[in-house]
């Protein structure tokens, strides 16, 4: 019974994921694409939960959905009409054809690999206990085995913040120079 439920949830989340991804790529209005991406992120969080990654799922919703997407929506709103575009006008160019082929090729390769059982790498899922994926175990790993990754990530965030400020400050200088008579 529990298995059946898991399957149902899985299919729902997977379907939502794919549909929203296609929507992101398909909409001409970027606002709708951003909203579709939020849906994508939510469905992915559900999938993470199914994979016993509770902390990651929570982080996904908070960071991605709560911060990144909000930023996106702010910028889209700021830019307004300039963001419209008609992607599929004029028929498929060679670029589009090439893109479809490349994407299809990547997909096909993965399917082939999976079909060939990938040399036995996909067998034997391990048995995990309750603490798997909990904040406590994640925290312990971050601060012991992967301390370097933790620190470096924080530096990356710092650099990005500085970069954002710099990019924004240029804009402010222009505003001031524009405003001067």
């Amino acid at each position, binding site marked *: 019974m529990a298995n059946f439920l898991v399957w149902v949830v899985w299919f729902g989340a997977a379907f939502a994921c794919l549909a929203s991804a296609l929507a992101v790529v398909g909409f001409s209005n970027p606002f709708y694409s951003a909203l579709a991406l939020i849906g994508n992120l939510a469905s992915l969080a559900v999938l993470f939960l199914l994979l016993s990654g509770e902390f990651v799922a929570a982080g996904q919703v908070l960071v991605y959905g709560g911060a990144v997407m909000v930023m996106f929506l702010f910028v889209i709103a700021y830019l307004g009409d300039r963001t419209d575009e008609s992607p599929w006008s004029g028929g498929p160019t060679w670029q589009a054809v*090439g*893109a479809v082929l490349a994407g299809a090729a*990547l997909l096909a390769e993965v399917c082939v690999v999976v079909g060939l059982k990938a040399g036995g790498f996909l067998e034997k899922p391990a048995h995990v206990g309750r603490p798997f994926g909990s904040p406590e175990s994640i925290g312990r790993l971050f601060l012991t085995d992967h301390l370097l990754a933790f620190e470096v990530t924080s530096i990356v965030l710092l650099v990005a913040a500085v970069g954002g400020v710099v990019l924004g400050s240029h804009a402010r200088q222009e505003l001031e120079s524009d405003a001067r008579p």
Partner: protein
Amino acid sequence: MKAAAWICLLLPLASALAITLGGTTVSRRVAGYISTVTTMGSFAAAVVAFVQMLDQSAGHRGHVTTSWTWLAAGPYHFGLSLLVDQLSVVMMLIVAGVSSLIIAYSVGYMDGEAEERRYFAYMSLFVFSMLLLVQSGNLLLLLAGWGMVGLSSYLLIGFHQERPSAVAAAKKAFVMNAFGDATMVLALFLLVQHTGRLDFAGVFAASPHGGAVANLIALGLLGGALAKSAQLPLHTWLPDAMEGPTPVSALIHAATMVTAGVYLIVRCHPLFENAYVIQDLAAGLGAATILMAGLIALVQTDIKRVIAYSTMSQIGYMFVGAGIGAYPNAIFHLMTHAFFKALLFLAAGIAIHAVVGEQDIRKLAGIGKLMPQTRAVFLVGSLALVGIFPFAGFFSKDSILSAALDRGTFGVIVYAAGMVGAFLTGLYTFRLFFIVFTGEPTPFAREHFHRHHGQEGPLSMRWTVGVLAALSLVGGLLQFAPLWHPLSTWLGPIERPLAEPTNWQEWGSSILAIAVGLAGIAVAWAIYAAGRARAPRALPLLERKFYWDELYDLLWYRSGDLVARGFYALVERPLVAGSLSALTAGFGVGSREVGRAQNGLVRSYVLALAGGLAVLAVVFLSVR
């Protein structure tokens, strides 16, 4: 004796170097004197070596002296070694002696020439090369001397560089000689392969007897000899070589270089005796050359060319002698021929020198009346050439012919050819003599004749010609086979002749030869001097020298030219030149096409990334 041999060899080399390095500090006259004195020194050294050799017993006269090992490679050792034995000493005497006389003559002949130093340097170089050739102790050094005489010949034929005909003649001589050199080298390769050595004694002992290899070796050596001695079929260069100055023609193309082929055969006679077919071939070609050259000489109008064809014919006699195995006789004829042929050339040179360089006998006709002394010596030379007793040619030429009688049917055929040749010799020689030196002088001759300080020619030219005339008179008395034969005895231990005619054959042949020669003279007299008979019209066959030049032009030059043109059109232009321009064009087109990928569009770059990723994934997966 070894010291004498080395001095004899190296003096001319020193002279050539001195004149070359001295440049303009050596005056032209002095260059001539240097050359003359050193060559005379060479002759003196040769005499010393000869005298020293007389003291030794007959069986022990061969000495090899090696200065250092020239080439050592694995089991092969070739030294810079000189062989001084009976044969080489005779050759040294002939070469050094005649060369010194001719070089002394050149001092007068080439006086006033702008490039006189170059001339004497080349002449000394030639004497050195020829001495190296005859003194060498192994075939490798002989080959070196062989090549160097070819070089000297080229340099001297083309001495008048501004004349295109001279340059062409020099090239022709060199190329034909190069062909002979090539066959000789191939023979040497075979010898080294089969015997492992090239010194004479070793090679003669170890070379194969009979069979294909022996024939090939002998054939290769014969090829070289034919080219150097201008015999059929490699003879066409000799008449053209008359473009060189007259002393050059006398020295190189009469007395010494062209006899190198005979020397080679006589020296390597064991190799030829191992391949008797080739030896018979040598005799046959010699006989054919006697006839052919004699016939062509009948229609020539250039005085030097008549004498050149005569040289060709007489060397044919020497080849007959070597081919039938009468080695001492061949060497004897080589010696007497050097005397009277040099005499004829130099006397002709006096006449040419006196009439502003004109060589056409129709224009020179009758000059004898103005130059009686020259006429006298020319007569001596002509009689010697025809072989009339007691002049030199009689003794040597007849000994060869009579030896031929001892060699069966083939010998008789060769003998007959030789007799016909003797008749032709009388005919063309005295045609020349009667036209040029008897009768009334032509207006041209009268107009352009000039004396040299009241004499017919400079002193240096006159005394040397006088010496040669004396030698042509008495030189033949050295050997008359039935009665006394010191030369055969001298050469006997190393050159055992195959043919020994009986005394009866000798006497009979001699008388027949004189008769035939006199018949030729008589016919010439009848046509050209007394006007009793009319000369037959010259056949085109003879005037075109039996079409040999045309044949070779067709065979070698035109075919080569055709092949070269074909290659150019079919291979070189499309492939080489075409491929280069195609290559550059291809590069241009290729890079333009590749450059189209750099279109600045981010999306296409991403597409490239994705495509690359797809390919890489396949690669990784397949490798596993």
